[in-house]
């Protein structure tokens, strides 16, 4: 099998990405896709803020830290939520129900935003 697939990947890399995208669309539930969309949004927001900090100004440095930190922190919490509610990881998180996972996520996020807005100044 490996000798067969390797030339195929070399010949058409775009088709591999397409295959990946198709497999993702087919095999991922809507809930996980929704989480992924949120993650992508957070990632883009963080990239924009970091680019602004590097290219324009870091001047209110606390504002940068809290703005960038809020996206990173939210990303980590959301990624944790995703791994806990994924049905494929059921064996890993036997004690954690999806409801419990969401409650942890919500509590963690509220604490995070509390600190972010205190530090935003």
């Amino acid at each position, binding site marked *: 099998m490996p000798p067969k697939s390797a030339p195929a990947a070399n010949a058409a890399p775009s088709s591999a990405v397409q295959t990946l995208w198709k497999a993702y669309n087919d095999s991922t539930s*809507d*809930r996980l896709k*929704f989480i992924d969309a*949120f993650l992508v*949004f*957070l990632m883009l*927001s*963080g990239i*924009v*803020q970091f680019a*602004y900090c590097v290219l*324009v*100004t870091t*001047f*209110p440095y606390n*504002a*940068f830290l*809290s*703005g*960038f930190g*809020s*996206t990173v922190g*939210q990303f980590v919490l*959301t990624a944790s939520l995703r791994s806990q509610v994924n049905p494929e990881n059921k064996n890993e998180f036997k004690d954690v129900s*999806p*409801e419990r996972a*969401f409650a942890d996520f*919500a509590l963690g*996020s509220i604490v995070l*935003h509390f600190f*972010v*807005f205190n530090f*935003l*100044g």
Partner: protein
Amino acid sequence: MLSFYSLPLFFLSLAGLLHAKSSDGDSVLVLVENAHKKDFSLFFDDLKEQGYSLTFRAPKDEKPAVVEYDVPAFSHIIILASESKNFAKDITPQSLVEIVSGGTNLLIGLSPKQTPLSSLAAEFSLVLPPPGTPLISFFPERKDPVSVIPIDASLPSTILPAMSPVWFSGVPFAHGNNPRLVPILHAPAESFAADSQGGADVLVDATEKGGEGLWAGSQLSVASGFQAAGGARVTWLGGVDMLSDKFFKKQVSKAKSGNARFAREVSAWTFQESLVLRIDSTTHHLVNSTTPEEHYTTNDNIVFTAHISRFHPKTATWEPYSGIKDLQLEFTMLDPHIRTALPAVAGSPGTYSVTFRAPDRHGVFKFVVDYKRKGWTHLHSSTTVALVPPRHDGYPRFLSAAWPYYAGAISTSVAFFVFSAAWLAGESREGKKAKGGKAQ
């Protein structure tokens, strides 16, 4: 009754007007050999006329003591016993230095002989020529001995106004590099220190050695002042004859000599009558405020004001003085972070004021006024003040440059709420579906 009391008062006030007073006190101790006392009668009469009370004492007498119970007994001391090799126990170089540190003014006459005063001169950075070599000059041509020299004093200096030539006889001295020394009268350019018998031979010897060991020229002084750290003034004269009746009356090119005037001006400076300043008070406050703050914030605009007075010997009063042109204010934390001119305020005499922005640096700072000019009283004032960073709510907020960060944080929070709402809504729908599925 009224006239009975007011008459003596009137005479007292009149006496106060007539007699100039020193800013430092009127008691003077004169150390002079009893035999030479009458040689200086004109000088002493002049001092008495100025309002000083003179106490005479021979150099070897024990009484009256210079220091009693650790307190200086006299405001000023004149030492005219320049040739005495032995003084009483309380007149030693060490004790005189101590007296000067305590604030007593000294007027000291030297002589070509080696005496305890010669070693005291070294303490004041004055370098004397070898013993037995007075200042001599063959110019201008005159009948007097070569060691009796008329010195031109027509150029005014800080301490001396322009005056007729001054007769001098004694030793010159070179100045060490002590910044507290003030030259009062320089030796003539063509004069040199030599044994008066040897004459010009010393010049020939010195020429062979490339000028080494020759004490000559106008860089030498015959009268120098010294201002101690405590404010006391010490004046060194190369010879006491400058103050003698003989030189007061001696004619120079058919005019009266300047010695009497010289003695008056030098004693006025030494006894702290002239060129005496003091800082009355200093204040500091914020612009648009009048009360001083205990601490200021970085970048505050601060106003610093100093009030300076000068002593007027005619009326014996301190009067506001606005004549200082080069006063400076330093705002220091170890180093001066700000050094700025402190100009006089037009319209209010004696007031010097400046407004400046505090540095962007917090710490314990000092307002320092440090004015040291040769001849004038040294002024020093230092006020400590803390400079603190802004309080937590003292910083600017909602800066336009930070809006991307604000937008990022707000959008994250909004997205979190939207996500949670959608998640919960989806969960309840799924739950219904699951229930529906079970029911089916």
